[in-house]
């Protein structure tokens, strides 16, 4: 909270002001809510805001619970979440590992903040997670270099490390939203192939300083040690910018399905390019036109042509709370919260609407706002019990604006029929998502 927020909180004794239609409230007033409530606003007023707190407690007397009357469980070496959180898991589209891709989607609606825990980080796997012995893994750097080199993990671990927070997003995340009709799906199904973690590793440019670069090199091919030997071509520009060989994910070694023991990390770039199980980097003059770049991640345009080397994950946001499955129980005060990110830099602004885009108000951004990272946004909202359509729209520091759905469809088109939600087919969707709130409190995906 900034000092100006404190000041406004202390001096604001008037009722919380509306900043946009259908109940969006001044975020600054609420940031200082504790002070306000303790001062000018009494308990009755709080009750009128939340619609519940004024009711006397009557569900159970405050007594010693069983867990307060005996020592708790022995502490485990590697702790897992409470058994009461057993539903906070990824959804799997191919749980039996049938030939083809496996997707594991992050449950955004059951999380908060900006960092995705490693066990909940999304995965798209094209050949399962290999069981790699880190001592036997090797990374070769060759091709148009002056001195081809091969590195062990132990060797890489002695190099100067860099740490940064960055999101990863599958190029196919949100792909079902090319649908001509709204989908019966929640935020996990629609946007769950994006996550954000703190990554630590060695900058690729550090290794290229040692191999040297032949001036003819303009691209590099990154290849994994997994069964598909998945390979992608990356502009050499990215290697000299912020590409990293990631060894640690949120402080621990990478998860097996996220590339253990090392992956290529290309902040802001299409997830599939961030090659897992990285074993080989070959500098070349032009792209290899691998299956994944020549066919899969080349989205068809309405004129029949297709984009090639989309590279970037463009500016995007979506509301995680409320969202489908999180039914509002009663009218009152809620916090609209969500995630914004851009492959081209920091989020500069997120606007929120509760009336389907007729009026907007600027959301609070949780610090720190980092480049190419998830940014949590929040907006207080008083739901009066009527119909509402919640939307968020993000801007980035490069001036890019998340398109409305109409703008996006005009450029990128729309499917002719409703696609399956769990199979990634169409790619690079970043338009505004709308959640419709019914008077029953039920939340559904809608179009405006």
């Amino acid at each position, binding site marked *: 909270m900034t000092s100006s927020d404190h000041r406004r909180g202390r001096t604001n004794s008037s009722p919380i002001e509306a900043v946009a239609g259908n109940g969006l409230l001044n975020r600054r007033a609420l940031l200082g809510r504790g002070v306000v409530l303790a001062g000018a606003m009494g308990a009755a007023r709080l009750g009128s805001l939340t619609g519940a707190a004024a009711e006397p407690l009557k569900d159970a007397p405050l007594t010693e619970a069983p867990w307060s009357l005996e020592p708790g469980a022995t502490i485990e070496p590697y702790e897992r979440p409470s058994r009461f959180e057993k539903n906070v898991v990824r959804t799997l589209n191919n749980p039996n590992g049938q*030939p*083809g*891709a496996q997707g594991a989607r992050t449950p955004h609606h059951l999380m908060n903040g900006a960092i995705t825990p490693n066990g909940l980080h999304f995965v798209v796997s094209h*050949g399962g997670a290999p069981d790699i012995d880190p001592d036997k893994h090797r990374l*070769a*750097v*060759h*091709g148009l270099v*002056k*001195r*081809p*080199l*091969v590195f062990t993990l132990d*060797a890489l671990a*002695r*190099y100067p490390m860099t740490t940064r927070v960055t999101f990863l997003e599958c190029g196919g995340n949100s792909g079902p939203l*090319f649908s001509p009709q709204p989908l019966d799906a929640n935020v996990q199904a629609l946007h769950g192939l994006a996550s954000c973690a703190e990554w630590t590793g060695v900058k690729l440019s550090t*290794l290229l*300083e*040692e191999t*040297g670069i032949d001036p003819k090199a303009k691209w590099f091919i990154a*290849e994994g040690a997994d*069964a*598909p*030997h*998945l*390979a992608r071509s990356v*502009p050499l520009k*990215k290697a000299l910018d912020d590409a990293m060989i990631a060894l640690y994910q949120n402080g621990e070694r990478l998860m097996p399905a996220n590339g253990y023991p090392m992956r290529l990390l290309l902040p802001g770039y299409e997830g599939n390019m961030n090659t897992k199980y990285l*074993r*080989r980097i*070959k500098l*070349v003059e*032009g792209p*290899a*036109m691998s*299956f994944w770049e*020549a*066919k899969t991640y*080349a*989205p*068809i*345009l*309405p004129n*029949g*042509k*297709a984009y*090639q*080397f989309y*590279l*970037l994950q463009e500016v995007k946001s979506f509301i995680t709370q409320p969202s489908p499955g999180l039914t509002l129980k009663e009218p009152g005060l809620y916090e609209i919260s969500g995630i914004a990110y851009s492959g081209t830099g920091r989020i500069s602004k997120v606007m929120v609407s509760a009336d389907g885009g007729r009026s907007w108000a600027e959301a609070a951004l949780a610090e720190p706002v980092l480049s190419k990272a998830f940014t949590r946004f929040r907006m207080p909202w008083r739901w009066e019990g009527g119909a509402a359509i919640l939307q968020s729209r993000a801007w980035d520091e490069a001036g890019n604006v998340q398109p409305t759905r109409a703008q996006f469809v005009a450029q*990128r*088109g*729309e*499917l*002719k029929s409703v*696609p399956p939600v769990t*199979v990634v*087919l*169409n790619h690079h969707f970043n338009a505004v998502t709308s959640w419709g709130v019914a008077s029953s409190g039920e939340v559904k995906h809608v179009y405006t």
Partner: protein
Amino acid sequence: MFTHSWLITAVWLASCLAAGAAFAEGPNLGKPLDAAAIAAWDISIEPDGAGLPPGEGTPAQGARIFADKCAQCHGPDGKGGVAGVFSAPLVGSDPITDIAASMKRIANFWPYSTTLFDYIRRSMPWQQPMTLANDEVYALTAYILALNKLIAENDTINAQTLPKVRMPNRDGFIVRFPDAM
């Protein structure tokens, strides 16, 4: 290209040794990698055919291998539709009339024929990648190209002929962000 890069390496290494040069900036913990050592791993194929190994195959040879090692997932004649497998059909050349990714086929979408060899060799069969001999990969490539009428039944596919197979949709692409490249 292979020979070329090896020559560059050799010349460069020689000049380093002569000058007693060191790579002073980093820890220098990488081990030198010579051409023979990387050969076992370097399976990259480029669109101009760079990297294609010796060997060859015909559609008829490929048909036999396909029936044995591929049809269980890709269906007889590569038509797909096998239950429980996420594999797109390998045939079909309908014009693209929809943005649905399911429209994409080899003959109506893939820009380069070399991608076929590269992908089959590195990733297929799905359960046993890198078990096909180069001749088998060439034969399967030939079979699939012939199924799609992109080569004739009697054509032979090898390192010289494959890059010359021009795919119909070669020019059907727009680079999204040229400034990033």
